[in-house]
């Protein structure tokens, strides 16, 4: 729904405005810890990335936080995460046998070797929500949309009516993850579909003009639908819109609201997955 409004107004705007790159001098602010990672109920090895904030025009990869002690707990068991890859620092991984349990609340606990912003201990908690079962998906091309058409990944599933649900969508092309950065990820609430049978609503739109992410007949496309918390849903929306200021519909800029305490930024997420695949005709 929101996407509808934004894209409508954006199209009108494109017709009338112009952009140019400018030089800007900005002030600096104190350094903060940034946490980025998540776990799900599938068995796999999960990563949490720890970095630091920098000046806005730093223009280098984010400075990594190394030698931290990172643990994951569900209240009973505790799992350690390790920097396993020697070539990449600041990424902490679980064992490859880890899987989360739906309904549990997971807390990520971080002890830093050096304090950031006066703190050495940070933590973030997230509850793993359940997700409806995906019956099937369908790939449909809309040839008149955009410059070369737009592929829709349409969903068929029964939406549970007795609770408020939030969804996140990722897709794979021939088993390779295509939604590899956060702005390609689609999210949705269930305001308009609560309790309904979802009969082919499009969850993901793929711009056919982008050759690196588009699909072709014969490809196997897999959709991963995840059940996420309200906080993670808000977080993803806020991240996607951050930095963008369109006077008609964005409000005053504000800092994204994550779930890391002590002034840390970012989100540690827990979610459960439902999968379905289809071959593009």
């Amino acid at each position, binding site marked *: 729904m929101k996407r509808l409004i934004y894209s409508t107004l954006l199209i009108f705007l494109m017709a009338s405005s112009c952009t140019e790159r400018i030089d800007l001098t900005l002030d600096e602010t104190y350094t903060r810890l940034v946490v980025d990672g998540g776990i799900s109920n599938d068995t796999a090895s999960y990563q949490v990335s720890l*970095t630091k904030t920098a000046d806005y025009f730093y223009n280098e990869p984010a400075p990594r936080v190394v030698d931290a002690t990172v643990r994951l707990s569900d209240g009973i068991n505790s799992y350690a995460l390790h920097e396993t890859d020697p070539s990449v620092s600041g990424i902490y991984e679980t064992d490859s046998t880890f899987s989360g349990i739906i309904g549990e609340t997971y807390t990520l606990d971080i002890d830093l070797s050096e304090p950031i912003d006066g703190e050495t201990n940070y933590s973030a908690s997230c509850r793993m929500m359940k997700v409806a079962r995906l019956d099937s998906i369908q790939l449909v091309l809309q040839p008149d949309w955009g410059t070369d058409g737009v592929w829709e990944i349409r969903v068929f599933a029964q939406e549970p009516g007795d609770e408020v649900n939030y969804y996140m969508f990722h897709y794979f092309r021939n088993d390779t993850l295509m939604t590899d950065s956060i702005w390609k990820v689609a999210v949705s609430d269930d305001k308009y579909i*609560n309790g309904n049978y979802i009969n082919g609503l499009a969850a993901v739109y793929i711009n056919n003009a982008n050759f690196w992410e588009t699909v072709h007949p014969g490809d196997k496309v897999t959709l991963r639908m995840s059940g996420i918390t309200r906080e993670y849903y808000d977080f993803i929306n806020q991240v996607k819109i*951050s930095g963008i200021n369109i*006077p*008609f*519909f964005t409000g005053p800029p504000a800092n994204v609201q994550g779930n890391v305490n002590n002034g840390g930024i970012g989100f540690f997420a827990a979610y459960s997955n439902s999968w379905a695949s289809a071959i593009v005709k």
Partner: protein
Amino acid sequence: MKFFFLTFFPLLYLLSSSPVMADEDLPKKWTISGTIRDASNGEDLTGATVFVTELKSGTVSDFYGNYSMTLPEGHYTIQYSFVGFRTIQKKVFLDNNTVIHIELSPAAETLNEVEVMSDQANKNVARPEMSTFKMDIKTIKSIPSLMGEVDIIKAIQLLPGVQSVSEGGSGFSVRGGAPDQNLILLDESTVYNASHLMGFFSVFNNDAIKDVKLYKGDIPPIYGGRLSSVLDVRMKEGNSKRFEVTGGIGIIASRLTVEGPIWKDRISFIVSGRRTYADLFLALSSEEALRDNKLYFYDLNAKVNYRIDENNHLFVSGYFGRDVFKNDFAKMSWGNSTGTIRWNHLFSKKLFANFTFVYSDYRYMLGTPEGTTTSFEWNSNLRDLGLKGDFSYYINTNNTLRFGISGTYHMISPGVAGGTGSESSYTEVKVPDNYSLETGIYAGNEQKVGEHWTFKYGLRFSLFQNIGPGTVYNFDSLYNPIDSTVYPSGQFYNTYYGIEPRIGILYTFNEKSSVKVSYSRTNQYLQLAQNSTAGTPLDIWFPASPNVKPQVADQGAVGYFRNFRRNTIETSVEVYYKHMNHVIDFKDFAQLLLNDKLEGEIREGKGWSYGAEFLVRLSEKKFGGWVSYTLSKSMRQIPEINNGDPYPAPYDKPNNIAIVANYQFLPRWSVSANWVYATGNPVTFPTGRAEIGGKVIPIYSDRNAYRYQDYHRLDLSVTFSSKVNEKKRFKWDINLSIYNVYDRHNTWSINFVQDEEDPNVTYAEKIYLFGIVPSVTFNFHF
């Protein structure tokens, strides 16, 4: 209520009765009254001056051209005058109640006779109103236009104390107030969204407008419901003497007005229409996606005016406008409709009354094309039904009493959204409708004491009630909704009231200079859920309620007014201070659309603004214009925003300059220019960055701690007119306007983006709306 009657009636008695004396000793008093009209088309003249030379005082005609003066028996020379018209002088021996109707003729273009300049051309000095500006349509038409359409809202942004909120938009801020704090009236009906096409054009068609007056402060007791200003726009009644057609053909839009008598001098009508064809330009766009889009607006103004007899005048007027936008996968439309029926009745030579019934409607629709399971439609509307009674009682030359009562019933449907079609996957989501009643009772007197002093004092009592059916959510201290209370139909479940004094004092040193002081308190019960810098048509008005207190403002102003050179040069300086309580702002990442718990997104606090406004206005026969400079500050302080620290309001622009000039250098050629300058808008910029999921996100500073670059722009226009020949009825002119002559790319917004090649690199990107925009319009009149 009791308060009103206890003070009003004794006041009336005191002011109108004479002290006890023998009848023969007292000079008898008689009333001169009548109507002042334009001789060329029969239009009532508002604010025409009636000046009694022997007494050095007089009165002005009201909105319907009526005037009344009560004077002692005797000989008088009365001057009737109005700007742009030839003054008429009448010698009268007053020994009875006399009715004198006057028709003033427009001053001819080439004037060979000496024009009698009435002393009352110094109205800005001699009238006790301050902080007001009467815009005359001729001035508005002479201002260079954007895309061929000149409008009132753009013109008032050239006045001191009035700031634009966002380029191109028609939201404006008066003395540091928010854009929803301006009461915009069209023939007494509230206009909720005064803009077409996102604000590039306003809903007012100049050819149908007679009168525009802006009150920036010192708001008279007859107006209520908004904190910062009143823009009172009155439509023409229609030429009651002969048919008249006015129109224009421009690049973006064309307009046509037809007016004339249905019954000569008794019934007249005026119909005005306008439509754009901007979508034709989209068809030429290089973006294929845009070519099939529809983007247009149209509006229609209509009015019928019936002079039943000398004491009764009936007006029926309406406005209907729509904006439509459609492309392959979305459609959107919105618009206002207003209708008013007014009965102007003269109870006696001294007591005039006006009764008005008002209907106002604003609605919008957004949706996807029908016929699929994913079709979707969202509708929202706001309707007002109002009744008003306003009275003017011209007690004697020194006292004019105005009082009245009004009530408006607001019906707001904030949003209903859902799928269309039987196979839809979407359920309907509805934000509950809300109903409220806004009432006002006022009384005020304008009293002249001696030769130098005039006192204006009045009181407005306002009442606001929420009426069921309604649902009110209860929130905890963290603004989480706990539960809700549902009220049945017809139940008055919440009441707010306000006591709003309006006071003004004028001291005239002489005919050329004066000083004025004013104080007013205003309450506002309806506000706009608008979080963006420029408004959108999707913004929704919401009422005060158990969770939302009414906004209240106190404003004081002092001004010095001085005219030079037979009133052809007017100068003024005004200093004001305004304090607002319960101003609203929204929490970070507020969800305003289709949110039934909208009240949980609101944060309230206080605001204050102060400034000094300087104006020098020149009006010679061939050359005119003004220079305005405003120095001001507008701040907000709201507990949960910016850590509770004060921050600049989004329209705080310390320096604002406008220079407007027009010059008729040859009988058929005139040129006009305006140059505007304003400090850049306050903005929140990043001071750091974090990397999340492959995206670089900004870490922001304190709210509004930075500014965009300063805004300035020059517009020019040249007009070539048909030969000035009184006998020829068909007159035309061609106007060439150039907006933003030196092509300054004024910042509209700045985005922070990641480089596509190297995602680690971020840069700032400025969006600007207009480069240099020329336009040509052909106007005609017969």
